[in-house]
């Protein structure tokens, strides 16, 4: 087909994702544009959205990539542009000082593909992120985009598409991991019409941003997946529900829909096939529970986003009580690749029950923070220590939290766990949407459980009693434990409420809400007991259970702590030992952060 054009000569990609924009990448982009307007060599300047945070590089931004040489420059400032144009584009030389230093080896690398971070990954859903200009549909087409749609429409019957999806073994990436092909088959089997196809771009899990990156960086992959899905189930109208906070994702998605309409990938008789499908965007209202399928549909209908009981499936009666397929952003982005390369190829990746790859947002106390995509079945150790580069500052690993607010915390003893749907559930956590938050010795596990419980209590819609009241009670108990008012029976009470929540809640929010408390109690019970019995928080996070003091033998009398103390609680003379007045100390921990000699220690056991 004529639309699949060959690749142009040289391209400058300036990352314009949220992270790099914050570092001023737009100025760099404009400078390239200005300098190259009059250049005689065939160079195209493009803005490509790069997944924020990939390789922890958003702090290294703005990022500039030169294709096809695959040179990777970081921290590029406007004055550097002239040098890059002169040296690299005109002279074919690499500007050493702008190259990235791989923290794993300490060496400068020309391409980010040479780093340990990159080599252990396998990109399917993120295949185009950072490689293309999301505002340009031709870029997507050049990398094989809309080829799968053409194949589906011209060579496959709708039921063939569904069968191929079932064979691939793809499971939903939004949380529950329901087999995608089976969901489509259920919907197609209904005799009611119209049918709807929806994309869940609500991404409510804190600490996760893969869906945002795909919507920002490769919107057409979602559109193509949805058109294929619509063809399979016989739908003529779809909606993409996007979180209100994601302004760049909203902008890029809308532009992509417009382009897809202009080029005949959406609308009447797509690619001349006679099949028609239209797509619109719905902005979310900023409520976590709206990510839940029935609540999301209520929200699209213009109502309050409260879930309903699940005895009727959405595939039978969903949006406006019509048969509906809802899939997550990442799920949709996988669809074109599966149709294009076949289910056999896809199902050769991964483990028995979990095929393909998963995108994780690897964040928290880890060296390389960012978005990663790895084959199912990779070990946690490989993710955190090889790809993530381990824990910064020589601190000890404590736990990794997966699955969002209703996931669980997995301890160091289980680092060799193979990551897939089954093993994570087996460990008391879950896959969820793919947040992966690494915690070190300075994280208090009781406070983490309190944090998640607080989040869920706040986000509970209040429709069912176990969730509304149970979470509030649990939060009260956890608050007390963190404040040093814990009792010995608290642990049993917590577990009892957990059980009630799991059994009796209306929707997934309440049913999974016990996970943070249950896993921390399972793996870190000793920390709870220390809080309750010894009135001690070993991580120094809970203020009421923490006392800061200066180790006399280590203090060099530099006075940095006193200078940084916002409460004026530290006294001493330069050259002498400094001391902290516990009555004035507000326990912010600044002194401990700034001390270069590790002289500030945490003691517990303050009588309450």
């Amino acid at each position, binding site marked *: 087909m004529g639309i699949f054009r060959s690749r142009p000569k040289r391209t400058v990609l300036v990352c314009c994702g949220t992270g790099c924009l914050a570092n001023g990448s737009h100025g760099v982009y404009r400078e390239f544009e200005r300098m190259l307007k009059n250049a005689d060599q065939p160079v195209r300047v493009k803005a490509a959205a790069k997944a924020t945070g990939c390789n*922890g590089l958003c702090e290294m931004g703005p990022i500039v990539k030169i294709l096809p040489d695959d040179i990777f420059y970081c921290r590029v400032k406007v004055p550097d542009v002239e040098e890059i144009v002169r040296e690299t584009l005109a002279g074919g030389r690499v500007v050493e000082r702008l190259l990235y230093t791989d923290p794993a080896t300490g060496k400068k690398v020309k391409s980010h593909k040479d780093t340990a971070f990159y080599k252990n990954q396998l990109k399917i859903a993120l295949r185009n992120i950072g490689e293309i200009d999301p505002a340009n549909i031709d870029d997507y087409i050049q990398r094989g985009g809309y080829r799968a749609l053409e194949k589906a429409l011209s060579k496959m019957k709708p039921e063939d598409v569904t069968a191929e999806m079932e064979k691939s073994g793809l499971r939903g990436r939004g949380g529950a991991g329901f087999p995608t092909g089976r969901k489509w088959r259920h919907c197609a089997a209904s005799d009611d019409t119209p049918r709807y196809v929806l994309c869940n771009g609500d991404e409510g899990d804190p600490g996760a*941003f893969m869906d945002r990156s795909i919507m920002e960086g490769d919107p057409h992959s979602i559109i193509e997946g949805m058109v294929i899905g619509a063809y399979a189930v016989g739908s003529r109208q779809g909606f993409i529900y996007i979180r209100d*906070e994601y302004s760049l994702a909203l902008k890029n998605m809308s532009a992509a829909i417009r382009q897809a309409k202009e080029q005949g990938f959406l609308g009447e008789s797509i690619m001349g096939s006679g099949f028609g499908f239209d797509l619109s965007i719905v902005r979310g209202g900023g409520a*976590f529970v709206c990510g839940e399928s029935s609540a999301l549909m209520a929200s699209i209908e213009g109502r309050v986003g409260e879930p309903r009981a699940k005895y009727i499936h959405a595939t039978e009666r969903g949006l406006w009580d019509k048969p509906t397929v809802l899939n997550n952003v990442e799920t949709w982005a996988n669809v074109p690749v599966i149709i294009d390369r076949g289910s056999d190829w896809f199902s050769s990746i991964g483990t028995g029950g979990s095929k393909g790859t998963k995108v994780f947002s690897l964040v928290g106390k880890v060296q390389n923070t960012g978005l990663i995509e790895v084959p199912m079945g990779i070990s946690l150790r490989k993710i955190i220590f090889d790809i993530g580069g381990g824990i910064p500052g020589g601190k000890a690993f404590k736990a990794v939290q997966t699955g969002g607010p209703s996931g669980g915390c997995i301890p160091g003893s289980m680092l060799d766990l193979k990551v897939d749907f089954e093993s994570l559930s087996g460990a008391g956590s879950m896959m969820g949407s793919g947040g992966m938050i690494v915690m070190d010795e300075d994280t208090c596990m009781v406070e983490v459980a309190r*944090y998640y419980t607080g989040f869920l209590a706040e986000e509970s819609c209040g429709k069912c009693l176990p969730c509304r009241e149970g979470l509030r009670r649990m939060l009260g108990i956890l608050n007390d434990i963190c404040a040093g008012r814990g009792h010995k029976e608290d642990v049993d009470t917590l577990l009892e409420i957990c059980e009630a929540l799991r059994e009796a809640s209306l929707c997934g929010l309440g049913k999974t809400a016990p996970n943070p408390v249950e896993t921390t109690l399972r793996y870190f019970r000793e920390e709870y007991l220390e809080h309750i019995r010894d009135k001690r928080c070993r991580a120094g996070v809970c203020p009421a259970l923490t006392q800061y003091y200066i180790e006399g033998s280590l203090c060099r009398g530099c006075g940095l702590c006193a200078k940084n103390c916002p409460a004026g609680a530290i006294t001493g003379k330069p050259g002498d030992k400094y001391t902290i007045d516990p009555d004035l100390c507000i326990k912010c921990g600044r002194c401990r952060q700034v001390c270069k000699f590790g002289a500030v220690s945490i003691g517990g056991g303050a009588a309450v």
Partner: protein
Amino acid sequence: MDFVKQREDLAPVREILDGYPREQRFLLAILQDIQKTYGYLPREALETVRLHLDVPLSRLYSMATFYKALSLKPKGEYVIKVCDGTACHIKNSQGLLDELKRLLGIEPGETTVDGRFSLETVNCLGSCALAPVMVINDVYYAKVEPDKIREILGMLGGKGYGDI
């Protein structure tokens, strides 16, 4: 009410309403547009929407209190959103919040009496690799240390607040 806001000009509301088909499913979108225009949902605007779409006012209020993107109270000139998502939380977003509370003398969800600053917390801005993150009127501040807050507020005309 102790604080009377002068009546808002309702022309933009009519414009927003004209931009949508007269169907209830556009209610959330309409309210979001009004929120964007005024920074909150003025009572008179809700009246206009009620008449236009023929829905009970109580329904509009239940939407307004359910969705976090909507607010019934006017917001300040600068809306400070501190991320308290997990990644930011374990990187001491609480420290940022404490410092902001101390300097501005308000709690999250409140606005300073002169209408300059509003303080809010949000659950993840999707920039977790830059944690802790704070956004002031769409400008992102990455890896913010508590001792940077005074400087940032100072640049936004925050002189006179706390010890700035």
